[in-house]
């Protein structure tokens, strides 16, 4: 059944390629799409994800222990895009991008059907040519900003003219609950003067948070919350439970 998503907040849902297995991560993506996700953020597991909290760190480690390869990640994108035409953003760390040569990574991601790249440790000015590579390939590079970034720095970042900007709602790592307060909501409003659309995340785990965010940005991002739901499902129900768990998680967050 088609969902009426017109008035709903757009939800960007994070998942990890190869977790808990390659096939199960495909099921996860399908579940997220069926649940009504606006877009997917697919994390390519890296051995040392230092911006991530324990939930995502542990899931990435399990994916790598199960033998995940970057090439399989790109093929997974192709399968997901064949299933449904939702925007898919590839999130990873500089190590994997630099390893393929930055332009090579951008080109491969675009060829697979990705809409954009989120590489938190390649920031404007020290990006190893990522933003230029993205423009050349025709793929959006999404900068990650945090509340407290100075106006001067914000202008530098926005000079890259990204379609989307990712706001981490607090400093620290992914996973723990984020209080939405005057500081981070105020910062979201400061971002509005730029052309870029805003997706906001870090510690989003309730429909109430998403409702609160709605007037302040274009999309909310949920990550560790979904990974947690999946890890519960994969131990309880086995493979087939994953797709339902993913779908249920999205529907819960969208208030259905």
């Amino acid at each position, binding site marked *: 059944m088609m969902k009426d998503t017109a008035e709903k907040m757009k939800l960007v849902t994070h998942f990890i390629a190869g977790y808990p297995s390659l096939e199960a991560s495909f099921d996860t993506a399908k579940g997220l799409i069926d649940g009504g996700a606006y877009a997917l953020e697919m994390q390519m597991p890296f051995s040392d994800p230092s911006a991530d909290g324990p939930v995502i760190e542990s899931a990435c480690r399990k994916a790598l222990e199960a033998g995940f390869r*970057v090439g399989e990640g790109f093929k997974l994108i192709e399968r997901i895009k064949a299933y449904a035409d939702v925007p898919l953003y590839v999130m990873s760390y500089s*190590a*994997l991008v*630099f390893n*393929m040569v930055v332009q090579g990574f951008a080109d491969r991601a675009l060829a697979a059907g990705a809409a954009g790249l989120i590489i938190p440790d390649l*920031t404007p000015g020290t990006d*190893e040519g990522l933003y230029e590579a993205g423009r050349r390939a025709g793929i959006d590079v999404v900068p990650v900003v945090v509340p407290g970034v100075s106006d001067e720095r914000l202008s530098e970042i926005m000079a890259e003219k990204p379609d989307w900007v990712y706001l981490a709602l607090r400093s*620290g790592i992914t996973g723990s609950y984020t209080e939405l307060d005057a500081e981070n909501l105020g910062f979201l409003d400061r971002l509005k003067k730029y052309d870029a659309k805003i997706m906001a995340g870090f510690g989003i785990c309730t429909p109430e948070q998403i409702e609160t965010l709605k007037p302040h940005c274009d999309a909310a991002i949920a990550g560790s919350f979904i990974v947690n739901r999946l890890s519960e499902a994969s131990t309880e129900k086995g493979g087939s439970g994953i797709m339902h768990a993913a779908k249920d998680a999205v529907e819960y967050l969208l208030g259905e």
Partner: protein
Amino acid sequence: MDKYNNFFGDFGGRYVPEVLRAPLIELENAYKDAVEDPDFLAELAEFQHTFIGRPTPLLHAVNASTELGGADIYIKLEGLANTGAHKINNAAGQALLAKRMGKKRIIAETGAGQHGVATASACAKLGLECVIYMGTEDIRRQRPNVYWMELFGAEVRGVESGSRTLKDAVNEAFRDWTASYRDTHYLLGSALGPSPFPDMVREFQSVIGNEVSEQFAASEAEQIDAMVACVGGGSNAIGFFSPYIEAGAPRLIGVEAGGRGEGRGNNAVRMDDTGRPGIVQGYKSCFLLDEDGQVLPTHSISAGLDYPGIGPQLAELGRSGRLEFQSATDDEALEALKFFARTEGIIFAMESAHAGAAAIGLAKELGKGRNIVVNMSGRGDKDIFISAAALDGANWKDFLQEEAGRIR
């Protein structure tokens, strides 16, 4: 050499999430300001003299040199610094800097535990709150150091992620810092990580090389022909080599952990053809990576050398040829430990024993009339559970069992 370089050739830089950009700029500015401020430098010199016990001796290893029948070996006894290793030089410098910056809390990673002990000690002395991240595998290998850190009032947090060693402790410290930087200084222990750490750690460790210069000039020997240091991340090496880098001489030799021998996961040798350029933990350098760019596991008998990356300046000096790299295996390090204990009455830390092993070979190669200075970056007391088990396993096991029975 400039006190702040950021990049060393292609290597170095600052590849961090946006959230850490401002704290690192704040640190860079505080560092640049402090190292030009005579008051700060005087405070540091006083601390080095009265607390660390500097200058540390430069020992002419006459017995060892005579027995080897080759070049004369001199040993810089950094192990005599308070807390037992060179790590205190950097810990003291950064702790004083943190205090100057108004930070109340210090976090640090540790591998062998020497940097953790040094940091905890400096924090106790300077009245700073201290949290040390340490991989649970390293806690197992270096338990005695955990007790010392706790005795100094530090909280030791075991790290269960990844390989549960030094690199994972670094990740965990960065995770803490991204949420705590407002009142917390991350006291990184090696000459690596995002800038300004590689420059700052080198400057605080350069006291080793500067003392060697003065001490050697005052000796009867003519000139240094070669300098040898072990290289994990490389903080003892870069500090020891520092005054000589821009001159063409002497030969500078870095010794990596050869572990059990060749093959993935058996060693921590990065500077032969197995290491590749990469960006990991905030800096660009040479790393042990697989085809996808994932960080590979490493092995060394010494926790302090058991790390997949190398400081960016050392990587660049290796690339340019100014620095030569060798490796010593676990067994060669143990042999060197025994040799210098027997001939000179000193106990090398397992890390430093890798440099000792290379110096033994080099003394024979260079021959009489030449001079080698080797940096004993730490002393080996902390390794007793490893060295005794490796060198005298049966008796050591009996002793431990008896001792365990005695504890109520």
